[in-house]
């Protein structure tokens, strides 16, 4: 039987509906490698394929556990929690890491409650001190930093996507298939799933290095295309304020802010975004913030490194032309 290193960190890796590893996987394994030996758990029918284990190894998993629990494709969270419980019982890890996604939180919550483990959510960093694993958090929209640790036992930690820059070295993992006894805990059932089509080859908003976001100032869905154009010139992801989402110009998956996605890119360009406190809570940890707004008193200017008071329909086309000219 495989024995696992004493400093094992168990990482639940989510897979996409098509069987690929989720984008959050590399950051989770990177964080795990920093404080111990990454042991990846892959759950689902496609996860049992050799290719999945290899892919996990390529981004740093030293060991891979695979599980295909009963009801895995038809029930919410519970089968994955059962698999995670079986994996934790086998590995005895120093910590358990999951993505702070909707599914990751559901699994983390149930698992922590079931095993009475200390739970830390939305961590932006992980470290180890002499007593164990410490989770670092950024709270109230980045205004405070807070460090947390369990009184004892292995903590369960969800990690904010895109917050970890560390990447683990590639490994050739040993793969173990897990036997998962079903817990019998009642779960909600999945009736159908409709994948949202990927519309472009732009970077994904979550974890993007550059973000261009549009707000009410864009005035219409047609005009919002200006945001897309600037994003493509900069190689940036596209985001939006709640006003633009509520107006129906872009899907809600574009929303940056307190509700919606929190981003910490190198560059955040806010076009026609007033900078309501809820929006700022989702982006004010960006390294550099640029804002263009007609209203000289827009709160976004209070946090902008470079602010332009002006009509974005004049400024942005000129910016695009200027950047394109210099690239040639």
């Amino acid at each position, binding site marked *: 039987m495989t024995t696992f290193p004493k400093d094992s960190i168990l990482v639940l890796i989510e897979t996409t509906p098509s069987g690929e590893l989720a984008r959050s996987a590399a950051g989770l394994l990177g964080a795990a490698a920093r404080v111990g030996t990454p042991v990846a758990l892959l759950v689902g029918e496609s996860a049992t394929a050799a290719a999945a284990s290899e892919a996990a190894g390529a981004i740093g998993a030293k060991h891979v556990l695979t599980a295909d629990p009963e009801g895995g494709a038809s029930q919410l969270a519970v089968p994955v929690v059962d698999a995670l419980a079986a994996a934790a019982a086998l590995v005895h890890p120093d910590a358990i890491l999951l993505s702070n996604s909707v599914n990751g939180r559901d699994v983390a919550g149930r698992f922590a409650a079931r095993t009475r483990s200390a739970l830390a959510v939305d961590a932006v960093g992980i470290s180890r001190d002499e007593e164990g694993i410490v989770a670092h958090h950024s709270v109230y929209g980045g205004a405070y930093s807070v460090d947390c640790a369990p009184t004892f036992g292995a903590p369960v930690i969800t990690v904010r996507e895109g917050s970890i820059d560390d990447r683990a070295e590639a490994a050739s993992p040993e793969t173990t298939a897990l036997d998962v006894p079903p817990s019998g805990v009642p779960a909600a059932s999945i009736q159908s799933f409709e994948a949202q089509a990927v519309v472009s080859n732009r970077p994904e908003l979550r974890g993007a290095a550059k973000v261009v976001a549009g707000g009410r100032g864009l005035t219409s869905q047609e005009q919002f295309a200006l945001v897309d154009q600037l994003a493509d010139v900069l190689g940036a992801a596209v985001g939006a304020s709640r006003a633009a989402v509520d107006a129906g110009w872009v899907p809600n998956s574009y929303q940056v802010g307190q509700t919606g996605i929190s981003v910490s890119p190198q560059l955040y360009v806010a076009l026609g975004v007033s900078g309501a406190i809820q929006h700022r809570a989702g982006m004010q940890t960006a390294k550099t913030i640029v804002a263009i707004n007609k209203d000289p008193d827009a709160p976004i200017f209070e946090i902008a*490194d470079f602010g332009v008071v002006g009509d974005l329909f004049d400024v942005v086309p000129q910016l695009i032309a200027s950047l394109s000219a210099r690239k040639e």
Partner: protein
Amino acid sequence: MKIVVLMKEVPDTYGERKLNLETGLADRGASDAVLDEIGERALELALSRAASIDNAEITVVSMAPETATTTLRKALAMGADRLVHIADVNLVGADLGLTAEVLAAAIRRTGFDLVIAGNLSTDGYGGVLPAMIAELLGVPYASALASVDIAGDRISGTRETDGGVMTVAAALPAVISITERFPAGRFPNFKGIMAAKKKPVETLTAADLDIDPEALDTPRSIMLAVSERPARAAGTKIVDEGDAGEKLAEFLIQNRLA
């Protein structure tokens, strides 16, 4: 049908929110306290469906300091039938695990067919309590719902996740959480405010729920350090004189951002 709505008092997001740098706890004096908006949406869902549900009884359950009673009474003024308020100084600073145990015990004591919660609070931003409570209650959990149908002994709805939209269903009793897709809570009217004064409010302590907040046999998450980030200062601000696009391009290139 017994509907429990989980609500929370939070610092007003529109104001300044502070942590006490010595205790690491929210500085409740630093800003106005309000009902969390997402919890109001959860209550609004219950209120708007109550008419079409047999014998709907809506109970708001909240764990909050004693001082939160005034804030929580707004839920009664909006139309909830009763309030169960867990207020206990020994629960100040409770971590997620302890909070989940307390709320699950209060919900079990109250009795429930459906528990409705917001998907993420605007202060803690945890988004895990409904899942923890569902596990402790041993019932299904349908999370992050953007729409919901409540019919007889069953709920169904759509769930927005990364990469797509799911249709999910669960037999009652169950826990659900809802997203911002749901309409905002109603404003209490004068009649509601007057009626609220007569509605039952039950105040409980951890001991009433047979929970020992100081028990050492369960691991708890504790805060080791808290620090305030320096406030972000405004940088250059220019007014467009016809060349702002070029100046901005210059700025981006100089800072290696383009």
